[in-house]
C-alpha cells in the first residue's frame, strides 16, 4: 500500500510535539531531582514554545493555508489551533497556580509537571483530532494523566475518592465512547469525520438506526467529559476533592478540549445525520441534555455553601451554555464556543487562583464566611475575584458577557430560541450565587485572621486572568475577529 | 496438508509420546540428580530402575483424590486440566521434520503461518492452571504460590517476547518451519552478537516460564510447603507434574526450533549418509535432550532466587538486555545489511 505524498504533515503536529518534548524534559528533571520551581519554569517555557507554533498555524489559517495531515485525521485549521491556544493558556495558568501552591499543600512530587504537560498534549490532540481513533487516544492521554493528578493528595479521603470516582466514571464514559465509535464505524465504514459525514449523507445510505445509536453513544461518552447533566454527577465531588491547582487545570483544559472535540463531531458527523429520516432526534436529545444542564448547574450552584463546590456547579452550568454552541453545529457556533472558552478559561482559572490563595493547606476552608470582609483585608484579591465572578455571571463589560451573547446569538440563528431563552433566564439565577460571594467580600464585617502573603506566581496568574477578562470584554473583536477570519476544514455538511 | 484423520492420529500419538516421555523424564531426572549429588537415585525396580515410573503412576492413581472441602470446587478441578491441556496443545505447532518426511506424512500437527505466536499464546494460557489451582485451594501457601507464579510469568514474558523479536526480525516470518529452514545464524555474522544475547535471554526466560529451578518460586518447598501444589493429591497432582514436564519439553523444542535449527541435522554428515540432516524427529529430539539435561543440571547446581531478586533480575537486567538485543538486531538489519 502506498500513502499519498502529503500524508505526513509534521508542521500541524508542532504544538503537540513541543509539549511532548517538554514533558520528557521535565520527566528527566524529575529523575535527576531538579529543583521544582526550575521544573515549573521549564514547563512554562514548553507551553510558550508550543504557543509560538500554534500561533504560526493560526496565522496560516488567516491566510487560508490551513493544513490537515494523515488523511484528514489531524487538523491544523483555525478552530483546532485556536482551541490549542486556549488549552495552552489554561495550562500556563494552572502551572502558575501550581508553582505557587504545591509546596504549601505538600504535593510537589516530581511527576506533577510531566503529567500536566502530557495531559495538555492529549488535550491538544483531542482538539485537533479529525477522526474517532485520534479523538479517543487524545481523550485517554488527557484523562489518564488527570486521573492521577486528581488523586494527587494521598492519604486524603476526599482526594483519593475524587481520583477514584473520576477514574471509574471516566473509564465508563470511555467504554460508552468506544462502543459509539464501533457502531459509528459499523454504520459508516470509516473513522475520519470527513469520510463518515460523506458516507452518512450519501444518497444510498440506509443504516440510519445504527448511525443514530453510534451518535448517541458518542454524545454520551463526550457528555461525561464536558459534564452535561445527567452525566455531571462526578464533577462536583471531583472538583472539590482534587487539590485546587489540579481543579484549575481540569476545569479549564479538560473542558476546552472535550468541547473542541464535541463541536467538531457535531458540525460534521452529527450534522450529516441531520438530513436523514431520524435526523431530528439527535438535536432533540442534545437539547434536553442542555436544558437539564442549565437548570441543574445553576440551581445546584445556588444551593452550595462552599465556594469551591459552587464553582464546580457553575462549571456544569457553563457546559450548558457551551452546549448551545454545540447545538448550533456550524462555524458560527464553533467560533462562539472558542471565544466563550477563552473567556471561561481566564475567569475560571482566576477564580480558582484566588480560591487557592485563601483556602487551607488541606484544601478545606472554602466556606463563604471565609470571604467576609476580604475587601478590607486583601483588596487586590477581592477586586480580582469580584471581576472574574461578575464575568462568570455574564455581566458587561467583561468577557463572560460577550461570550454568552455570542452563544445565544448562535443558538437563536440556528433556530433554538426556547433554549436560548432558558439560558438567559438561568443566567439571572447565576447572578444571584456569584453576587453572594461578592456581597460577603464587600459588605460583611471581617472576623477572620489575616491571610498569608500572596505568592508571586499566583499574583501573575490572577493578573493575567483579570486583565484578560477585562480586555476580552472591552475589545472582543480582536480575538473573535481573528477566529472569524480563519479557515475551517471539514465544514459544510 | 494431511487428511484430517491422519492429523488426529498424529495428535494422539504426540500426546502419548509426550506423556510417556514425561514418565521417563522423572526417572532420568532423579537418576541424574542422584549422580550429580553422589548418590544412587531410584535403581531398584527393573534394570536401572526402569520400572520406577510405572510404579509411580500406579501409586498416584490409587492414592486418595482429596478435594479440599473449603476449595472452590469447580475451579479446583478445572485448574489441573487447563495446565495439561494447554501444555500438550502447545507442542502441536512445532515441526519435527521437513514436509512429507514422516512416511509420506508431515511430521507436525498443525502448520500455522503464525506458529511462533501460537506457541507463545497457548503457553501463556497454561499459566492459568497454576494460579487458579493455587487460588481455588483456598489456603494461604497455595495462594502465595499462585501470586508468585502470576507475577513471575508476567515479568518474564517480557524477556521472552523481546528475545523472540530478534529472531522474528531476522527471519521476517512467524512460521516456525520457515524459521528452521532459514537458520537465523546463517544470515550475517553481524547478527551473531545480538542473536547470542537473545538466545541467552530466551533460555533464561523460558526456564522462568516453566517454573524450574532457580525460578521455581511458585512451589518453593522450603518456604511455602509446595506452593500451588500443596492441596493437590493423586491424579490431579500428577496432571500438574505432567504439565510441568511437557512444558519443559515444549520449551526445549521451541528453543531448538528458534535458535538451533530445529529438526535440521548437521550437514557435515551428508557426504557419508545422504539425507541424514533431513531425518525427521531424530535431530529435534537430540536437541531437546540437550536442553532437558540443562534444566536438570541447573536444578542440581543453582540455589533458588529470592523473590525480590527474581523480580529485579527480570525487570532490571533481563528485560533491558533483551530489549538491547532487539534494538541492535533492528539497527543491524536497517543499517548494515
Amino acid at each position, binding site marked *: 500500500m502506498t500513502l499519498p505524498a502529503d500524508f505526513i504533515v509534521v508542521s500541524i503536529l508542532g504544538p503537540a510535539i513541543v509539549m511532548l518534548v517538554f514533558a520528557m524534559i521535565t520527566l528527566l528533571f524529575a529523575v535527576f531531582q531538579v529543583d521544582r520551581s526550575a521544573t515549573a519554569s521549564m514547563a512554562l517555557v514548553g507551553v510558550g514554545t508550543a504557543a509560538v507554533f500554534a500561533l504560526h498555524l493560526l496565522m496560516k489559517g488567516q491566510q487560508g493555508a490551513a493544513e490537515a495531515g494523515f488523511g484528514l485525521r489531524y487538523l491544523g485549521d483555525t478552530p483546532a489551533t485556536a482551541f490549542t491556544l486556549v488549552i495552552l493558556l489554561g495550562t500556563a495558568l494552572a502551572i502558575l497556580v501550581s508553582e505557587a501552591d504545591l509546596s504549601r499543600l505538600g504535593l510537589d512530587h516530581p511527576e506533577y509537571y510531566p*503529567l500536566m504537560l502530557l495531559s495538555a498534549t492529549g488535550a491538544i490532540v483531542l482538539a485537533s483530532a479529525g477522526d474517532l481513533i485520534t479523538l479517543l487516544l487524545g481523550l485517554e492521554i488527557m484523562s489518564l494523566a488527570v486521573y492521577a493528578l486528581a488523586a494527587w493528595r494521598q492519604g486524603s479521603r476526599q482526594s483519593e475518592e475524587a481520583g477514584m470516582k473520576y477514574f471509574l466514571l471516566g473509564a465508563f464514559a470511555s467504554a460508552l465512547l468506544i462502543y459509539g465509535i464501533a457502531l459509528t464505524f459499523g454504520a459508516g465504514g470509516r473513522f475520519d469525520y470527513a469520510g463518515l459525514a460523506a458516507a452518512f449523507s450519501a444518497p444510498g445510505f440506509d443504516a440510519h438506526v445504527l448511525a443514530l445509536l453510534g451518535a448517541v453513544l458518542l454524545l454520551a461518552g463526550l457528555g461525561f467529559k464536558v459534564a452535561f447533566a445527567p452525566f455531571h454527577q462526578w464533577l462536583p465531588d471531583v472538583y472539590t476533592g482534587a487539590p485546587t491547582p489540579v481543579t484549575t487545570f481540569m476545569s479549564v483544559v479538560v473542558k476546552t478540549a472535550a468541547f473542541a472535540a464535541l463541536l467538531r463531531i457535531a458540525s460534521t458527523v452529527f450534522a450529516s445525520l441531520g438530513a436523514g429520516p431520524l435526523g431530528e432526534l439527535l438535536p432533540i436529545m442534545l437539547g434536553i441534555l442542555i436544558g437539564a444542564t442549565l437548570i441543574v448547574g445553576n440551581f445546584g450552584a445556588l444551593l452550595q455553601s462552599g465556594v469551591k463546590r459552587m464553582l464546580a456547579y457553575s462549571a456544569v452550568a457553563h457546559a450548558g451554555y457551551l452546549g448551545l454552541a454545540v447545538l448550533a453545529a456550524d462555524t458560527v457556533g464553533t467560533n462562539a464556543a472558542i471565544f466563550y472558552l477563552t473567556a471561561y478559561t481566564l475567569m475560571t482559572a482566576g477564580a480558582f487562583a484566588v480560591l487557592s490563595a485563601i483556602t487551607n493547606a488541606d484544601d478545606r476552608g472554602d466556606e463563604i464566611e471565609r470571604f467576609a470582609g476580604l475587601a478590607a483585608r486583601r483588596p487586590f484579591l477581592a477586586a480580582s475575584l469580584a471581576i472574574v465572578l461578575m464575568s462568570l455571571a455574564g455581566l458587561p463589560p467583561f468577557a463572560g458577557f460577550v461570550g454568552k451573547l455570542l452563544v445565544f446569538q448562535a443558538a437563536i440563528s440556528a433556530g433554538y430560541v426556547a433554549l436560548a431563552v432558558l439560558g438567559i433566564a438561568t443566567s439571572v439565577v447565576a447572578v444571584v450565587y456569584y453576587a453572594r460571594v461578592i456581597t460577603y467580600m464587600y459588605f460583611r464585617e471581617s472576623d477572620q485572621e489575616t491571610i498569608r502573603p500572596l505568592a508571586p506566581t499566583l499574583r501573575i496568574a490572577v493578573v493575567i486572568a483579570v486583565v484578560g477578562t477585562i480586555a476580552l470584554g472591552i475589545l472582543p473583536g480582536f480575538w473573535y475577529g481573528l477566529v472569524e477570519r480563519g479557515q475551517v476544514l471539514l465544514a459544510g455538511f | 496438508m494431511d487428511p484430517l484423520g491422519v492429523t488426529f492420529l498424529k495428535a494422539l500419538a504426540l500426546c502419548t509420546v509426550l506423556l510417556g516421555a514425561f514418565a521417563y523424564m522423572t526417572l532420568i531426572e532423579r537418576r541424574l540428580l542422584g549422580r550429580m549429588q553422589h548418590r544412587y537415585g531410584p535403581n531398584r525396580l527393573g534394570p536401572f530402575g526402569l520400572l520406577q515410573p510405572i510404579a509411580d503412576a500406579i501409586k498416584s492413581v490409587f492414592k486418595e483424590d482429596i478435594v479440599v472441602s473449603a476449595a472452590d470446587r469447580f*475451579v479446583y478441578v478445572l485448574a489441573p486440566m487447563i495446565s495439561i491441556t494447554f501444555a500438550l496443545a502447545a507442542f502441536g505447532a512445532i515441526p519435527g521434520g521437513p514436509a512429507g518426511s514422516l512416511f509420506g506424512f508431515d511430521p507436525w500437527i498443525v502448520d500455522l503461518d503464525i506458529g511462533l505466536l501460537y506457541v507463545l499464546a497457548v503457553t501463556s494460557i497454561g499459566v492459568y492452571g497454576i494460579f487458579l489451582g493455587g487460588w481455588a485451594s483456598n489456603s494461604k501457601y497455595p495462594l502465595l504460590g499462585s501470586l508468585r507464579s502470576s507475577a513471575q510469568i508476567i515479568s518474564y514474558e517480557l524477556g521472552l517476547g523481546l528475545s523472540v523479536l530478534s529472531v522474528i526480525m531476522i527471519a521476517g516470518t512467524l512460521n516456525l518451519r520457515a524459521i528452521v529452514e532459514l537458520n537465523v545464524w546463517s544470515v550475517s555474522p553481524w547478527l551473531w552478537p545480538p542473536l547470542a544475547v537473545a538466545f541467552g535471554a530466551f533460555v533464561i526466560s523460558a526456564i522462568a516460564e516453566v517454573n524450574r529451578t532457580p525460578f521455581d518460586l511458585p512451589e518453593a518447598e522450603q518456604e511455602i510447603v509446595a506452593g500451588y501444589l500443596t492441596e493437590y493429591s493423586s491424579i490431579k497432582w500428577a496432571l500438574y507434574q505432567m504439565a510441568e514436564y511437557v512444558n519443559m519439553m515444549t520449551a526445549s523444542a521451541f528453543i531448538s526450533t528458534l535458535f538451533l535449527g530445529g529438526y535440521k541435522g548437521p550437514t557435515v554428515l551428508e557426504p557419508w549418509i545422504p539425507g541424514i540432516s533431513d531425518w525427521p524427529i531424530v535431530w529435534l529430539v537430540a536437541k531437546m535432550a540437550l536442553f532437558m539435561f540443562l534444566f536438570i543440571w541447573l536444578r542440581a547446581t543453582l540455589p533458588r532466587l529470592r523473590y525480590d531478586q527474581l523480580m529485579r533480575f527480570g525487570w532490571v537486567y533481563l528485560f533491558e538486555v533483551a530489549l538491547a538485543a532487539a534494538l541492535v538486531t533492528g539497527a543491524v538489519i536497517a543499517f548494515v545489511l
Partner: protein
Amino acid sequence: MITFAVLAVVMVVGALGVVLLRQPVHAALSLVGTLLTLAVVFVTLQAHFLAAIQVIVYGGAIMVLFLFVIMLLNLKEEATKTRAAYRWVAYGVGVIAAAAIAVGALLDPRQAPDALAVSEALRGGSPELIAEVLFGEFMLAFQLVGVLLLTGMVGAVALVQRHNEPPRPGTPLADASRRDARGTR
C-alpha cells in the same frame, strides 16, 4: 454461520457471567472465556494473527494481571454486594440499551459481506496486512498509543511510589535508590 452462532451464544453467556457471577474470580474467568471465544471467532474469520495477539495480550497478560489483583485483594462475596434498588435500575437501563442496540443492528438493511470475500481480503490473516494499516494509514494513532502508555506509566508510578515515604524494599526503584544513597551511582 452455525459456528458463528454457537460462538456468539458462548460469548454472550460469558459476558453475562462477568456481570452476574458474585465471586470476582469467577467473573474474571468468565471474561477470560469470553475473550478466548472472541479469539476463536477471529480464527473462523481467518484472522490468525489477530487471534494469537488476542490470546497473548488479553488472555496471557491483561487477565492474568486482573486475577492477580483480585487474588491479592482476596475479595469475598460479602464485600461485593451492591444495593438492590440500584441494581434493578441498572439492569433495566442495561436491558433497554441492549435492546436498542439489537434493534439497531437488526434494522440495518445491509447484507453481511460474503465470508469468502472477507477471507480473501484478509489474505489468510497475514500480519503484513495489519502492519500496512497500522504503520501506514494509522501511523499517527500508533504513535499516540505510545504517548498514552507513557502517560499511564508515569501516572501509576507517581501514585504508587511516593518519594516522601521510604520505598519498600524489593522493588527495583527501592534498590536503585538504596544504591544512590550509598553514593555508588
